[in-house]
């Protein structure tokens, strides 16, 4: 049997670089080794892709879901829950946080899914290429009004957010840079698309209109020239601020909660050395994300950051559904499941604004705390689900459990989760109320129930909200 700390570390890696893993998978991966697992995660092409055809057979409305939930959410949730390339999907979620684009304005989940697919395909590639693709992504163009950015009448929305939220961060450019940057992206638009009536939706297609582009000279971040959008991106990625900004995002998403993005110009990172290490990798790799991620996951600062990150609602829901299992074939009700992150304050494909979601402790308010605890508790308390049965099966092998063994066993199997002494004492007190539990002599059903209830109580702890 694998060493307990190896399991705990692997569980940490899989929670962060993916959406958690059951005990069988963790043990397999420990055998394979930590660094080998990191490599596998970094090479999604070695694992099969999600079978979209099966989704479309049962849920055809998830292909072109239009403007109303939940079919767009269903589509992504199916990928999130069933992917065998967890880091690929996690990176799509990461970029969705950074390039936050919302259905509230786009009114078109098809286009948002197409953008997510861009993140899926290019999210672990080169950041410069990704940024260029995002600049040409019609969904982004519409979201930030760049179709209204004309050579004769500049609209600065995209130009500003490109610098403030997508690459450099506030304070690293002037208002003049915003203006000049926006001028460089004039004429970047999309073709009129076939409207949704009467046959359903059609996608946009990027279009560059040279006649609407301001081809004059621009002065941007100390450079001078008749820049077009691509030139701007080349200048942007070379800025030292760019690496710092992206790497701080990576740190906040994968390692430990940082203050909210608007505070970054004021508050220094909690671990400057870690950011420096990541920035160095980013620069050396010429903006290729893979070496940065490799550095991150293999670093001590990552390995030592267990439970220093508040799970996002997406992580809560996807992690729970992957843990309890049974969603390989689409079922009715996947719509309601797909809206669970929304109920917890993270409406996937519809972030509150271009600034994305506030993370960390801001995921928690009285409503969202109740929603997340109740969702997880309902699932892990359902002894008919395969993942819960697997947990019970492992505990059952011991025949009977003392209160302490029940608590330790459940904490171990659902995580391993680390809880504070006070919490542990409460859990143990509850287990003591139940006394020794046993699967012998017709007590199996009660024993199953006790495990399920202990799992529920663990899911309700403060500690469990961290991942």
């Amino acid at each position: 049997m694998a060493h307990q700390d190896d399991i705990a570390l692997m569980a940490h890696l899989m929670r962060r670089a993916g959406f958690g893993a059951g005990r069988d998978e963790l043990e397999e991966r420990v055998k394979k080794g930590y660094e080998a697992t990191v490599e596998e995660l970094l090479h999604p092409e070695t694992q099969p892709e999600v079978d979209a055809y099966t989704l479309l057979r049962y849920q055809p409305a998830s292909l072109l879901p239009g403007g109303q939930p939940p079919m767009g959410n269903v589509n992504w949730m199916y990928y999130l829950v069933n992917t065998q390339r967890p880091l690929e999907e996690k990176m799509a979620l990461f970029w969705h946080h950074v390039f936050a684009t919302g259905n509230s304005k786009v009114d078109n989940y098809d286009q948002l899914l197409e953008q997510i697919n861009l993140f899926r395909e290019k999210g672990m590639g080169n950041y410069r290429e990704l940024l260029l693709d995002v600049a040409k992504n019609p969904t982004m163009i519409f979201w930030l009004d760049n179709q209204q950015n004309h050579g004769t009448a500049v609209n600065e929305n995209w130009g500003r957010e490109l610098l403030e939220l997508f690459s450099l961060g506030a304070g690293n450019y002037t208002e003049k840079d915003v203006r000049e940057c926006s001028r460089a992206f004039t004429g970047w638009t999309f073709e009129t698309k076939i409207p949704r009536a009467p046959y359903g939706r059609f996608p946009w297609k990027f279009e560059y209109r040279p006649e609407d582009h301001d081809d004059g000279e621009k002065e941007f971040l100390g450079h001078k020239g008749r820049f077009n959008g691509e030139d701007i991106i080349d200048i942007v990625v070379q800025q030292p601020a760019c690496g710092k900004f992206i790497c701080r995002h990576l740190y906040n998403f994968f390692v430990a909660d940082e203050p909210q993005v608007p505070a970054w110009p004021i508050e220094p990172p909690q671990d400057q050395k870690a950011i420096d290490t990541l920035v160095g990798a980013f620069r050396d790799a010429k903006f290729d994300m893979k070496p940065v991620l490799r550095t991150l996951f293999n670093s001590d600062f990552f390995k030592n950051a267990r439970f220093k990150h508040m799970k996002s609602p997406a992580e809560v829901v996807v992690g729970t559904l992957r843990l309890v299992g049974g969603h390989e074939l689409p079922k009715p009700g996947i719509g309601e499941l797909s809206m669970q992150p929304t109920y917890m304050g993270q409406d996937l494909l519809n972030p509150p604004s271009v600034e994305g979601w506030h993370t960390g402790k801001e995921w928690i308010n009285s409503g969202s705390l109740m929603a997340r605890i109740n969702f997880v508790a309902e699932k892990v308390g359902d002894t008919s689900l395969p993942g819960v049965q697997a947990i019970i099966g492992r505990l059952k092998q011991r025949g009977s459990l003392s209160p302490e063994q029940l608590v330790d066993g459940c904490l171990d199997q659902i995580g391993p989760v680390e809880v504070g002494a006070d919490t542990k004492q409460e859990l143990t007190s509850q287990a003591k109320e139940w006394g020794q539990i046993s699967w012998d002599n017709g007590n199996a059903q009660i024993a199953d129930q006790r495990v399920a209830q202990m799992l529920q109580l663990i899911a309700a702890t403060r500690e469990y909200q961290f991942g």
Partner: protein
Amino acid sequence: MPLTTVQEGRVYDWSHAVGRNAARGPGFNYVQSMCLGKNGFLYATNRGNENNFGMHVNKVQLGRGPGEEEHIADFFEYGEGDGKCTWPFGIAVDDNYDVYVSDDWTNTISVFDSAGNFLRKWGKPGSGDGELNRPAGLAVEKNGNIIVVDSGNNRLQVFKPDGTFVGKCGGTGSGDGQFNQPWGITLDKDGNIYVADWKNHRVQKLSPEGKFLMKFGQYGKVEEPEGSYAVTMFGPYVAAQSETAGYPKPGTLNHPTDVAVDPDGDIYVTDWGNHRVCVFDSEGRPICNLIGDAQVLSKWGQQTVDANPDMAKARRRVKSLEPQYRFCFPTAVEFDPATDSVIVADSQRNRLQIYKKVRDYSDFQANL
């Protein structure tokens, strides 16, 4: 693609489209399968969505030509209990005009009269004789028995109209006579059985007794051609250079969903994942492909556009409407001998596209 396809002595002439996106009433909502009744009636199962909206069977009088379609009735809508559905899938009509519909979530077959009144149902989940696991396509044999594509069990089962189990054939796998999540089914005039063997990317022909006779089709799909327009993330791709770029070579299939056979023995397969209908001869040799040619709006589609001036305006600004002509995940095909029509359920476009098989076609002078 030209409106008229001429290949190996066959002529297929695009006639018209019927439908529009509608959760009920005149239009369709993700057709999973369809069948022809008597007197020009067509029944389609609509899948709807997770708002429990849009799932139903609709009955449409097709008429003989463009603009003659009429919406007759909706039934088998979402709900619990008799006459209600969760996931409607396969559909077939027997000689008494009774309509059989499978529900691949509740694992039942429901029977309605031709007006949509519930008569009876049968079926329970499982893998034993008479038990069902995600039933898909349905067909009625000459003797009135019902063949059910028991998709999750990778077999066909035969039932009497009252639901009594009669027999079964098939099994899981990719060998002859085995299936992998089959979808649609049809019978030819001699009672031979054709099954769209979905995950095996082929069609199998079985004798009326269920013996393997023939298979055709092999997996094939193309990646998105450079510079093309992807109508969805999974195609079809409309390429600037050639109208058939983005479609794989003849004889290959990508998740075929349904089969139809015409009185001449020609076989039509909805090549779902490749967004086309492949025509094969009776030996399974590929003849030609239809890729969708809906250049003219359907009657109901025109109504929608007329009611929405902004949609009408946008349509006039579009560089090319070609993506709208094309099939997008066609799920079902029927051949109507009465009108010599190939009727294709263009699922993601919520319409039917109808082609005429023209038998008396005389060519024109080339120097027109």
